[in-house]
């Protein structure tokens, strides 16, 4: 039991037919998630994250391929899966006209448990919204809604927890708190699959799968992903950012250049003495307030590089 992977995805293909065009949502993806790890599915909107989660929670049927959760086949044993997973969809899916307490009571009861039985599991999260327990769910703030949704998904002590973009539309402080909660849940032995479009959250996962247009680009630890990035990377800024981008892109020794916050990230094709190349461009274009640094790649840089391949 211990050695068995919590989630196994094997060559899953899913297509949608929208009017007459066929849209490929998942393009034969495979990975597996170990027990008790936080596994991130990282990718932009439309990458296929929600489709994948729905297939794993038995809500959708894949066109081909196989998947299992907790050792149960998602198609054949869907009833067992519905008994043991927790699922928090991307859209806030609680009853807006029921109070905080009523929502939690409802989900506890339909999963055949009580709030008291598993209270210690949700205590940290629920305590924060307990002062508002008589308030209607529809009147909560985004962060509180998300905490309530997580409490409802956890109340039956699921063995695997699926969180579809739980931090979308939530402020930075609440996001940070939310990830801290996930780490505490992990300590309770719950396997967590979490999808997000925020690249910076990848480093908070044990392992991540980078997904783009229905295909997995890489499955690794966050450190492993950045280590795969071998090319030299520089950050540059100046007052004339738009022209700078065009000038850099014209240089044949540069592989790519893309905006990143207040900087442009520049990837060179080869190792070597690359700084003079940038300095030359800056001099030629009479740029002002220039700043040039060699930097370590983050997940987003890796994502950009992997997308190009």
């Amino acid at each position, binding site marked *: *039991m*211990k050695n068995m992977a919590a989630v196994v995805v094997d060559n899953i293909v899913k297509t949608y037919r929208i009017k007459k065009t066929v849209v490929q949502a998942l393009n034969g993806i495979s990975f597996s998630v170990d027990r008790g790890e936080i596994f991130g599915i990282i990718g932009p909107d439309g990458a296929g994250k929600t489709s994948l989660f*729905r297939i794993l*929670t*038995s*809500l*959708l*049927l894949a066109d081909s391929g196989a998947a299992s959760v907790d050792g149960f086949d998602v198609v054949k044993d*869907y*009833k067992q*899966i*519905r*008994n*043991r*997973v927790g*699922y*928090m*969809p991307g*859209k*806030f*899916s*609680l*009853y*807006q*006209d*029921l109070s905080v307490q*009523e929502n939690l*009571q*409802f*989900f506890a*009861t*339909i*999963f*055949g*448990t009580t709030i008291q*039985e598993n209270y210690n599991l949700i205590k940290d999260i629920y305590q924060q919204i307990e002062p508002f327990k008589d308030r209607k769910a529809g009147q909560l703030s985004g962060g509180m809604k998300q905490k309530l949704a997580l409490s*409802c*998904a956890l109340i*039956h*002590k699921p*063995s695997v927890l699926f969180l579809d973009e739980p931090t979308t539309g939530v402020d930075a402080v609440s996001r940070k708190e939310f990830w801290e909660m996930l780490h505490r849940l992990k300590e*309770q*032995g719950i396997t967590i699959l979490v999808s997000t479009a925020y690249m910076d959250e990848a480093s908070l996962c044990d392992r991540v799968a980078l997904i783009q247009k229905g295909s997995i680009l890489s499955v690794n630890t966050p450190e492993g992903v950045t280590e795969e990035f071998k090319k030299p990377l520089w950050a540059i800024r100046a007052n004339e950012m738009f022209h700078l981008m065009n000038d850099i892109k014209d240089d044949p020794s540069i592989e790519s250049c893309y905006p990143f916050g207040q900087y442009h990230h520049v990837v060179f094709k080869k190792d070597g003495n690359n700084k003079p190349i940038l300095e030359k461009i800056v001099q030629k274009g009479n740029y002002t307030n220039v700043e040039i640094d060699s930097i370590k790649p983050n997940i987003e840089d890796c994502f950009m590089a992997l997308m190009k391949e």
Partner: protein
Amino acid sequence: MDAQSLNTHKAKKSLFGGGSKQFFIFVKKEWLHIWRDRRTLFILIWMPIVQIILYGFALTNEVKNSQIAVFDQSNDQATSNIIHEIDASRYFEIIKYLHSYKDIGATFRQGKIRLAIVFPSNFRNDLLHTNSAQVQLIADASDPNTANTLTNYATAIINDYQQSLNQNKVLPYTIKTQLRMLYNPELKSAYNFVPGVMALVLMLVCAMMTSIAIVREKELGTMEVILVSPLKPFRIIIAKTIPYLAVSMLNIACILLLSVYVLKVPINGSLFLLIAESTLFTITALSIGILISNGAKTQQAAMFTSLLSLFLPTLLFSGFLFPIENMPLPLQIISNIVPSKWYYIIVESIMIKGLGFAAIWKETLILVVMTFVLLGLSIKNFKIRLA
């Protein structure tokens, strides 16, 4: 941890073997949705009451105290008896006695009267010696419905009189009028629409409201969460329908109380049978609602599908507003697949004609078969997954 989680899973399983707790909390939750949406609840409770009162009083085609004129060229015992009967009825008020044919046209043109009754001379003599006499009814047909109703009322009164004369006669007297009535001698219009409103309200509350309630969960995304739970999908649906069943039973009670005590439309047959048949029809309507919700993706779609496939057919094909016998044959055939038609016949038979189960077993059987087919279809089409 593993052993512990296994234990809780086992506990869940045994609990779910009964599943009544889950079912109950679902019904409670559904009831809270209805209870907290006060505006909708208000409409659900008041709609049938308002409909009954509207149809009963405002939109009635029953005509009371219509002003009429009489031109009696005979002035004998028989005509004065008939005139007395007519004046005594609450439908008519004789405001003018005319003395020539010319007066008739003039009085009509003044717009004072809606009906004139003309007795020829020698009315009683004709009746006694030839056993047959004639009465002419002239109605203002600018409003054809009223004209039709008035002539029917007058004819009914004359027929009554004729019957009272004939009680001990071997050779019956006949007073000839052009119009005859077959049924409902007092022409109480409330008789027709009480069963119609019942069918309409049950269709609306059960089918439309349940289909909207189910689709609302799909639209809000909560269906996604409760599908990924140990609750059996079809139990979810049944649990959702129960509060609406309760509301529609309340509606039926309101309608029946109003029709008996306010509109004075009696329940001639068995009340128990009436309620049993109404429950059957409620289940028919609920299964239609579930079937609609299977296909609809948005609440609006569910509402329009319900209106088009339930409300209009109930209005048009149940015989409530328009007699089915007068429709072209293709429409008559179509009317057979409208469940409301059969329910209308059943309610009419029990409430108004006072008939027992023996008279309506065929209609009941049709409804039962329809319900099973609809329920079967909605179970078969119910999606245990999304899309």
